[in-house]
């Protein structure tokens, strides 16, 4: 049996699979379907200092091989998340990653400081790539200097490892990645959604009330693979990969590209059991490779030359 455990800064994971931020709420809804302790980790919905109402509806639209969303970081605010959601998650034996958003560096610092005090919060993820809000969000993620600066500031106040979630909507994602690594980031999460739009042919107007939205799902996996492949060669810190993972094969593709762990987003909506199903299937698939730990497969696409990796096929 291949060792499926993955060890990342702050995160001792039973397996490399976690739900992606924003696609799993704070876990309650999915706990009606399975035991959340099965997961490698849980990454919760973006938290901001105060309550946020988000964007008007419609907030989602379907696309060929994916979907657009423009939720707009709706969340009940730091206090409520601390007292209610994160406390509730303590009943499970699973590390929690808190995804943080804000409009100023102070916002990020405030949330990071507060949540990193909680025993089950093992890491934070700085969402500098949300395409669905006017201020902050993506602005932090497109300029390497601003991204590094933000990372440094949060690192100073945060007592758990800091992951930075990168935006794919940039010319040079490796540049941003290297900047946040310089800023002290312990890891990277990539990719967030691609900026997209759909237009309603009956009204002639965008389907989403917000106009644009973030593209996720199968459609974006090739973009995620190439970005993870590129970035993992250029940084020393580990990558939590995400973008269009629907099954164990997809997760493996991201791992071979260079991810150490994999987050599952949109697929949770298609199948509420997506994460545990992928965990089981992944163990079976990985057992066919000639490795003793799944960690050996991370980055194999560029670390070794072409060899038949599979033992039986």
């Amino acid at each position, binding site marked *: 049996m291949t060792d499926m455990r993955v060890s990342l800064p702050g995160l001792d994971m039973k397996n490399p699979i976690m739900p992606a931020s924003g*696609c799993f709420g704070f876990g309650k809804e999915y706990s009606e379907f399975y035991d959340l302790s099965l997961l490698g980790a849980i990454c919760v919905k973006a938290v901001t200092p105060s*309550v946020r109402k988000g964007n008007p509806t419609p907030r*989602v639209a379907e696309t060929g091989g994916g979907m657009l969303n423009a939720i707009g970081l709706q969340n009940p605010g730091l206090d409520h998340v601390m007292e209610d959601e994160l406390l509730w998650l303590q009943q499970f034996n699973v590390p929690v990653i808190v995804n943080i958003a804000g409009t100023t560096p102070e916002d990020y610092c405030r949330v990071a400081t507060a949540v990193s005090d909680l025993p089950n919060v093992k890491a934070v993820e700085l969402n500098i790539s949300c395409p669905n809000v006017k201020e902050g969000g993506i602005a932090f993620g497109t300029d390497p200097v601003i991204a590094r600066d933000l990372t440094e500031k949060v690192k100073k106040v945060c007592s758990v490892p800091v992951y930075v979630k990168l935006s794919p909507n940039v010319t040079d994602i490796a540049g941003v990645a290297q900047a946040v690594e310089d800023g002290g980031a312990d890891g990277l999460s990539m990719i967030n959604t691609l900026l997209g739009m759909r237009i309603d042919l009956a009204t002639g107007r965008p389907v989403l009330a917000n106009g644009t939205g973030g593209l996720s799902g199968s459609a974006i996996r090739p973009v995620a693979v190439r970005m993870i492949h590129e970035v993992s060669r250029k940084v020393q810190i580990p990558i939590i990969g995400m973008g269009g993972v*629907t099954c164990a094969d997809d997760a493996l593709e991201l791992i071979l590209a260079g991810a150490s762990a994999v987050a599952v987003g949109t697929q949770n909506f298609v*199948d509420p059991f997506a994460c545990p199903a992928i965990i089981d299937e992944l163990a079976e698939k990985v057992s066919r490779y000639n490795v003793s730990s799944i960690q050996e497969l991370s980055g194999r696409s560029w670390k070794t030359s072409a060899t038949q990796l599979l033992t039986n096929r």
Partner: protein
Amino acid sequence: MKQVEKMKVLRNEKIARSIFEIELEGNLVQHMSGPGQFVHLKVTDGMDPTLRRPVSVCRYERKKSTFTMLYRAEGKGTQLLSRKTAEDTVDVLGPLGTGFPTDGLKPGSRCLLAGGGIGVPPLYELARQLKAGGHHVTTVLGFRSKEDVFYEEAFREFGDVYVTTEDGTHGAKGFVTDAIDRHVPVWDRYYACGPRPMLRALETKLGTGGWLSLEERMGCGIGACLACVCDEKNGPGYRKVCTDGPVFPAGEVVV
């Protein structure tokens, strides 16, 4: 308890212009807890289309482990659904949401049910349960045109039925509100499901004391993604259509 089940198609037939009636069988039916709930359907094994489709439960038979839905085959997902035949399966997530309450009514209450277009289906199980509970049911159904009318006779089993069409090709010309003006002077509680403009008109005319079933674009269908929210009418909060609804008391949320 919410389930995911590959349910067996028993039949799937066209009953009006673009409108299909499908009956499914499976264990999930045991968990249905009243009229007005919905299910979230995956109509293909592949990833095209990506998302599930929310569709209301029209009626269910717990003893037979079957339930029926009526749907309009229009876009990609519902068109694929319309091609399913007996013995095929449909991947169903459900039952979901909070439906129409039938409690808190005095015995023999007069219930007004107003449905518009593809909003009509969930009212069927409601009418059935209300009638079984000893209440009086009056149903007002609005459609675009004669070819779109369905379930007029089905509802007659439970009480008076008034049908309106926008173009007057069947029943009275006009909207459900017109028929209510004319035929339903009094009622103890009302229930409605249909397009937003209809719901708004009803809420304005009939005020509180009723229940409205809303539609909104959905992602997860179970309360996790926040795609389907609507605003509280008097307050800063919001409600999720998929879990807090789809049925809300008139006056609670912005329709």
